[in-house]
């Protein structure tokens, strides 16, 4: 029997209640929107890149606790990281939430709270949506919009 606390760990509930970096960013030089048409979750990511480094990251949107907490925690861990480091984090995060195995040592320890998501296949996209939006923002020039139905 799967327990609710495996998915809804206290850190996730905390970030859902009080999301960090939950604000628009006027001085952003990268941004992207993520949308999951299946459930209607949507969020917007703002980044301020200083050279190759993420100087600031923020988000806003509406979604379930998993997607909101994932976005919130993500903004806290990518600040100060280079695009290359974030790309490796993205890959590790995907491996962790889909349960496909492989190294996840690029991932900051606190993101391990999302490991339980792999037991809930219907919720994997909730956790990964913010990361896909982040990736889209980094790979784009200016604005971008991604959907879980197109390649995520």
């Amino acid at each position, binding site marked *: 029997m799967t327990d609710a606390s495996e998915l*809804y760990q206290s850190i996730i509930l905390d970030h859902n209640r009080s999301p960090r970096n939950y604000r628009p960013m006027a001085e952003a030089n990268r941004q992207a929107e993520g949308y999951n048409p299946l*459930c*209607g979750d949507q969020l917007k990511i703002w980044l301020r890149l200083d050279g190759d480094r993420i100087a600031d990251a923020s988000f806003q949107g509406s979604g*379930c*606790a998993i997607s909101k907490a994932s976005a919130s925690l993500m903004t806290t861990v990518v600040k100060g990281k280079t695009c290359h480091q974030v790309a490796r984090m993205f890959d590790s995060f995907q491996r962790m939430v889909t349960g496909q195995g492989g190294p996840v040592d690029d991932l900051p320890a606190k993101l391990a709270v999302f490991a339980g998501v792999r037991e809930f296949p219907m*919720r994997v996209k909730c956790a990964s949506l913010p990361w896909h939006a982040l990736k889209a923002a980094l790979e784009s020039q200016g604005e971008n919009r991604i959907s879980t139905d197109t390649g995520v």
Partner: protein
Amino acid sequence: MTTAAPRAHRFDVTRVRSDFPILRTQVHGHPLVYLDNGATSQKPRVVVDAVANFELQENASVHRGVHTLSQRATTAFEAVRALLGSFLNASDPSEIVITAGTTAGLNFIAQSYGRSMLRQGDEILLTEMEHHSNIVPWQQVTQAAGARIRVIPVTDEGELDLAAAATLITPRTRIVAVAHVSNVLGTVNPVRHLADLAHANGAVLVVDGAQAVAHLPVDVGQLDCDFYVASAHKMYGPTGVGFVYGRLALLNAMPPWQGGGGMIQSVTFEGTSFAAVPTRFEAGTPPIAQAIGLAAATRYLQALDQAGLAAHEADLLSYATSELAALPGVRLIGVAAAKVSLLSFTLDGIHPHDVGTLLDLHGVAVRAGHHCAQPLMRRFGIPGTVRASFGMYNTRDEVDRLVEGLAEASKVFGG
């Protein structure tokens, strides 16, 4: 053919439950509480047996072969049409078109009736509570014709604003398309009233009956609708099959929709003459085994004590409504005076998907999200709802399990 429960047997939920083997399933260590009947209902053994028996003993294509099995299959398939005709009180079995389901049925009406008669400046009237299936097909044909869509608003209680409807239906209105029962709100709409309004203005009324057929007796004569559309799988039948009732005079004037085998009279490379109604609208091999299953589901429904079934579902609705209303943080979406046994709600501070996952961990299956009714979600200013939709086999004990699960969800998120 396996027979359903004998007639005139008083409605007995325990007996009904024993007809549905899936209800003995365990989910996450709990007995399944299946409250997602609005998405698809479970199937009694007689339906599954009817499909299996056909596939194993009687399978053949219809309308094609001269061999024995094909003739038997054709007879059985046409008997489904006749049964559905009497189930809906149609005046002629030819008024029943077998489809792949409600979505296919609505697309058929839009593409055949809509596309052939809509002109620039015409209007189609929908309601704010429609499922995307009763919106998108109309958008496709209005855009092509230069016609436009207007929308009957929904009140805070979740009922149609009939005063607005009366002014929105005008001689420009060609088609009024409305859900008999809302898949989100459970509201039973006043179909006959809308039919009268439509007809007074020279429009036809299309009724999406997907959410109604399992819960209400449907009499197309009394409703006076021009088209009535439904799916088998929401009325305890198989997926992949459904039906359209269409007034014979309208069907006879409608062009074919999809082209293919079975719907023709003769084909040359220069042109084709089409078969008569309704086979003109049934291109390709139909879902034969599924239609046999639909017939079994229809007979199963017909054999039940109708008054007892209605009373049972009304009791579930009133019990669940009062139990949920008593829970802190619950907001019911849709409190119409006339409802089927379906409850949509939100829980303060918890997204519907999280509620859905937490209930699932208690073995309670509900639907969470926008329910393919995004305009209605915008109307109520919410991203989605949790929907508990009841079927004939649900019980008060299962309502209690839902309430326990919700209390637990609040505890998880409140800590």
